[in-house]
Every structure is written in C-alpha cells, then in structure tokens.
C-alpha cells in the first residue's frame, strides 16, 4: 500500500519536472542558439544574471495562450517572478524572444500586469527586460488591449515603486510607451532600438527618405539626442549591472527611506582643500562641476543619470556619509552651463523622481542664465523652464543648494533658491548672485552716463568693475537673508552632512486638490 503511494507520487513529480523542463526551454534549442548568435542572452539567462544567485521564483511558467493548441509554448513569451538584488526583494519580468519573437498577446500582457499588481501590493521595485517583436498580430486587437493594461499598471505604480526598463532588443510602436512610462530606461548599444514609427512607415510617408533602425532609434540616439534613454550599456551584462547599481540608491517603495550604507563602508573624499581654488578667478574660464562633486560626496558614489544628453545640466545619485541623495547641477564645461529646453526637462524629471522616492536634493548652481534665441523661445523654453520651478516647489524632500559661481536672473531663482523652497541655501565666496551680469546691468543702468563720458569705454569698464564688486558677490544676497550662509568650499561636505542630519520631510499644509497641472 505504502509502496504504490510512493510510486504514484514519484510519477506526479516526474510529470512536474518534465513540464518544468519544457517550460524552461522556451522556444526550443534552435531559437535559443539564434538568440545567442545575436550576442543576446535568453530571458531566463538575463534574469539569472540580474538577480542574486538562485533567488528567482518564477510565476505562471505553464501559462498557454490557447490551451486547446497542442503546439502552444509554455509561458507565452513572458518570464515573470520575483527574486533578490543585493539581498533586497524585487519583481522582474523578461520577454522571451525565443517564444513567438517575444510578441505580446493578452495572455503575455496579463502575466506582466499580475506581476505589477504583486509589486504594488508588496511595495517592490519592478525591473522589465524588453526584447519583443511587438504585438502578436495573429491575435488581433486584443494584443493591443494587453498593452493598454500594461500601461495602466505602469501609471498606477509610478511614484509608488521604482520602475526600471532595460531595452535588449527591438521595441517598436506603442510598445515603446510602457518603458517610457517607467522611471529609467537603459538601452544596450547596437542591439536595442525604440521608435514609434519605424523606417518603413517613415519611408512610405516621406516618400523615399531612407532611415535605418539604428540612426532612427538606436541606443546612441536616445542617450544623446532624444533623452529617452537614461543610460547606455555596451553589452547586456553591463546593462544588468547598471540596474543593480541604480537600485542600490533607491528605496523599495515610496513609504521607505533610501538604503543607507553602514558607516564602515563610507569613504570620504581624500582631498577637500583643492575645492578652495577650483573655481577660476576669471569668470570666463570654465571648470568641471564633477570635480566639485568629487570633493563633496562619498568617494566613488556619484552615479550619473542622463550622462550623454543635455550635458550642460548634471544629474545623478550619490551618497553623503552613506545616505543616498539626488544631485542636480550645472556643468560650466558644457554650453557655459546655460539652462535650455533639454536641460530643463532633464532637471525637472530628476527632481520629481527624487521627491517621489524620498531622496534629499542637493543642487549646485553655476549658470549664466537661460539660453537666449528664437529657437529656444519658439521651442517653448517658457513652459519647459517652468517645469524646474514646479518640480522644486512641489518637492517636499530636504532641499539644499550651493551656488558655486554664476547665479544670474531667472537661472538663479529656478535652481532651488530660498524663494522656491530650499531648506538651506548656501554659496561659495566665488558666487555671483545678481539679477543680470555686470556688463548687461551697466548697459541698462548707466547707459546715459557712459555715452556722456569723454572716455565711454573706460567709464564703462570702471562701472562694470564697480558693479561686479557690489552685486556679483554672495554678500549682497547674504546681507538680505535670502542666502543662509557663505561657506568655504572645502567645508561644503561637512556642512551638507550636518544639514542632512537635521533636515526632514517638509510638512506644509497644502490646499486640497486632485493634482496640480505641471507645465509639460
């Protein structure tokens, strides 16, 4: 009696194992080999490379699109489940290109939306690994319905749990909107593409203009021109490494604080004294803002986001005495650090993200102003620039700003000034905080005086010098209390760490509303 029961159980286990093996093989060895030949890993290999070893728990591996179809493939082209990264729980899904080209059916989509629900209920980040030919055309419009359900999940999860998309193959048409709704897009160079209308459609509409996939929507285009991609990775392994590093700065959800490194793991910058002489005396000579960060944040902790796009602005994550923070800055080395349309979008988006996930914001200001020109005005710099103000004012995380050199006019006010809600607004002695540059100011204020002088050029130079001394300094603002302090550059790190210990979430009464209307 006991014997036969064991036999029966063994047979059931055998069946389970056989079914598991079948599900694990995806679209079969031939297709797996094709995937490898393209330099790409399979969905399950990617998940294994992303997660801590042996932590992946797959969900619904036996799902079939059409249960009555004897040839239907288990899993339906989506591998979903949960596991751990650096010992922290995450939800992950990967499209399996070996199964129907990773195409999206309603069944495939619902595996993803169920994972989104699970992530949302349990407050876990979602990482999506994209590699899909698009909608499963044979299924008709129901596959589009599936995309719509995924979009819904993306929007509902937005700001609740971090969402990261890794592009590891094609992503064309409406499919591109799911990654676009997530917080970060990482594209693998040369193997991933994203566009709404492909080369063939463009050709048929534009009549003969030939565009190739790569120059239309390759990783390099999106990482440097469109700003769609936040990171570019030379290969899949690097892309997955970026996900792990990115998550190391982020809380699992919006109710948690970002992870903090134990004090023993914190490395202070070895040298701070150089900061005192970093800013050149000649205001026309640029310097590298990343060198400022090197002397302020924990050593090696700056992790730049959007490094190839709108490089006149600098955003990224870093740690201060182990605490994760968001860094926003201008880069004087690029376009003099002006604020233009792309820089506005880059800054505003990053500020929104940091605010949603409880990352204190540290802003370094060195901007001569907004970029003048009809191109910028006609492109809507007014509504784009307004996003920076909106994002900073709405942010309730601790906000600290440091003016390192130029802070003129509108660029001064929008960059986390005291007026728009900075908890602590500091400046270096090299700061020039004024309504406009000395030359421009003198032209307006002293136009008649200069014209009447026997030596207009000499008079002008003297007035410029005078204005620079009285207005283009941090002390005019400091004396009026719109600057909290002027600090020695080498003291910046110590001051910021002390401030971060004190500052908490800003709790200010807000009028009841459904949501504001961010100028987009």
């Amino acid at each position, binding site marked *: 009696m006991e014997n036969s029961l064991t036999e029966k159980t063994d047979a059931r286990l055998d069946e389970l194992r056989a079914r598991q093996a079948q599900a694990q093989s995806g679209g079969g060895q031939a297709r797996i080999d094709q995937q490898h030949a393209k330099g790409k890993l399979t969905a399950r290999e990617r998940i294994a490379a992303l997660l801590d070893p042996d932590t992946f728990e797959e969900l619904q591996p036996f799902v079939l699109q059409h249960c009555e179809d004897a040839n239907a493939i288990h899993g339906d082209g989506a591998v979903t489940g949960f596991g751990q990264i650096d010992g922290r729980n995450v939800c992950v899904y990967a499209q399996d290109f070996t199964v129907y080209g990773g195409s999206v059916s309603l069944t495939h989509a619902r595996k993803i939306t169920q994972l989104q629900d699970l992530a949302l209920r349990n407050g876990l980040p979602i990482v999506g690994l994209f590699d899909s030919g698009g909608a499963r055309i044979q299924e008709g419009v129901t596959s589009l319905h599936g995309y719509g359900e995924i979009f819904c999940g993306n929007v509902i999860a937005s700001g609740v749990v971090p969402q990261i998309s890794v592009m590891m193959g094609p992503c064309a048409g409406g499919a591109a909107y799911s990654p676009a709704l997530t917080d970060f897009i990482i594209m693998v160079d040369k193997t991933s593409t994203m566009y709404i209308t492909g080369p063939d459609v463009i050709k048929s509409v534009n009549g003969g203009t030939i565009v190739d996939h790569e120059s239309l929507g390759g990783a390099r285009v999106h990482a440097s021109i469109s700003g769609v991609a936040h990171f570019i990775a030379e290969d899949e392994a690097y892309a997955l490494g970026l996900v792990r590093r990115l998550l190391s700065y982020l809380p699992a959800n919006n109710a948690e604080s970002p992870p903090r490194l134990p004090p023993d793991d914190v490395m202070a910058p070895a040298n701070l004294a*150089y900061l005192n002489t970093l800013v050149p005396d000649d205001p*026309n000579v640029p310097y590298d803002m990343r060198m400022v960060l090197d002397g302020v944040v924990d050593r090696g902790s700056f992790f730049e986001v959007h490094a190839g796009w709108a490089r006149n602005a600098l955003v990224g994550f870093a740690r201060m005495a182990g605490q994760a923070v968001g860094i926003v800055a201008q880069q004087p080395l690029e376009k003099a650090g002006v604020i233009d349309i792309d820089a506005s979008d880059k800054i505003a988006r990053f500020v929104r993200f940091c605010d949603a996930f409880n990352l204190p914001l540290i802003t370094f200001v060195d901007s001569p102003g907004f970029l003048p020109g009809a191109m910028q005005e006609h492109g809507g710099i007014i509504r784009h620039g307004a996003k920076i103000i909106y994002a900073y004012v709405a942010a309730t995380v601790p906000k600290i700003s440091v003016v390192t050199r130029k802070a003129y006019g509108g660029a001064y006010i929008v960059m986390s000034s005291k007026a728009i809600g900075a908890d602590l607004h500091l400046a270096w002695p090299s700061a020039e905080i004024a309504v406009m540059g000395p030359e421009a100011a003198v032209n307006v204020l002293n136009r008649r005086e200069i014209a009447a002088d026997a030596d207009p050029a000499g008079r002008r130079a003297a007035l410029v010098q005078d204005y620079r001394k009285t207005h283009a300094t941090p002390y005019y603002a400091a004396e009026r209390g719109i600057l909290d302090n002027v600090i020695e550059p080498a003291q910046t790190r110590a001051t910021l760490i002390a401030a971060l210990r004190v500052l908490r979430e800003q709790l200010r009464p807000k009028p009841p509303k459904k949501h504001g209307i961010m100028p987009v």
Partner: protein
Amino acid sequence: MSVFYVTVHGKQYTVEIPDVRTRPVRAIVDGEVIEVDVAPAPTTAPPPAPAAVAVTAPAPVAAPEIRPTPIPAAPVATAVEEIKAPLPGTVVSISVSVGESVTHGQELCVLEAMKMNNPIRANQAGVIRKIFVTVGQQVQHGAPLMAIEA
C-alpha cells in the same frame, strides 16, 4: 570600487577606481581624480580586467586641472562630421588647421558665448577637412564650425 597600489619610478600611488567600465575611466590617485583613456577591448569580451588599466603617473600638483568632459560616442558614425556651434557666440581662437589629424575630444576652437570661453571639442577622431569660421567671427546657434572626416 577597486583599489590598486601602483608604483611609478619608485613612488607608490594608491589608485581607486569606482567603476572600471566607464569611459574614460575615472581613477582617484592619492585622492586626486584623473581620467584615464583605456584601449578599447574586443567588443564581445567581458569588461577589461582592472589589471589591464594603464595608469599614467599623476601630475604632482595639488590643484586639479580642467579636464575635457568625455564626449559620448557620436550617435551615427558618418564619414564627415560637422562640428556645429552649441551656442551663439564669437570664435576667440582656433587651435587646429585644415589637414590636421585630431583625436576624439581634442580641443578645436574656443567659442566665447554666455560670458564663457567654451572649448569646442572633436566628437570623433579624424582629419580636419574644412574650417568654416575665422577668429573674431560671430556665429549663430548651430552654425557649422568645422568638418572632420573620420
């Protein structure tokens, strides 16, 4: 973060590299940040082993120099790449001549714009085929400055 101890001419330097896979590699040599160009690895190979990083001896000065910002790979490699003015401004100096070979990231000219001397750098290695501007010339946003042939 990897830490190496490199001896150059009998002096030992502590070299920390936060991420060996960035290009150029940012290395912290005795607390000073320098950028190191690394020869490209075979494309399919794993990221270069830290040992392969060639570290040049750092300048012994305390005050760091201004380094060129790494320029991301050009979106689309074309034979002739026009370098365009990123800002409206005045060309205050030109540091190359027609026919000269330039490296990726080399300074080509300086554009005074927004009260700043902005170095304009090569976005690819190649030969200068054309220089469209002269010193003192005012240029519009997007105006071609030079053409580089890869």
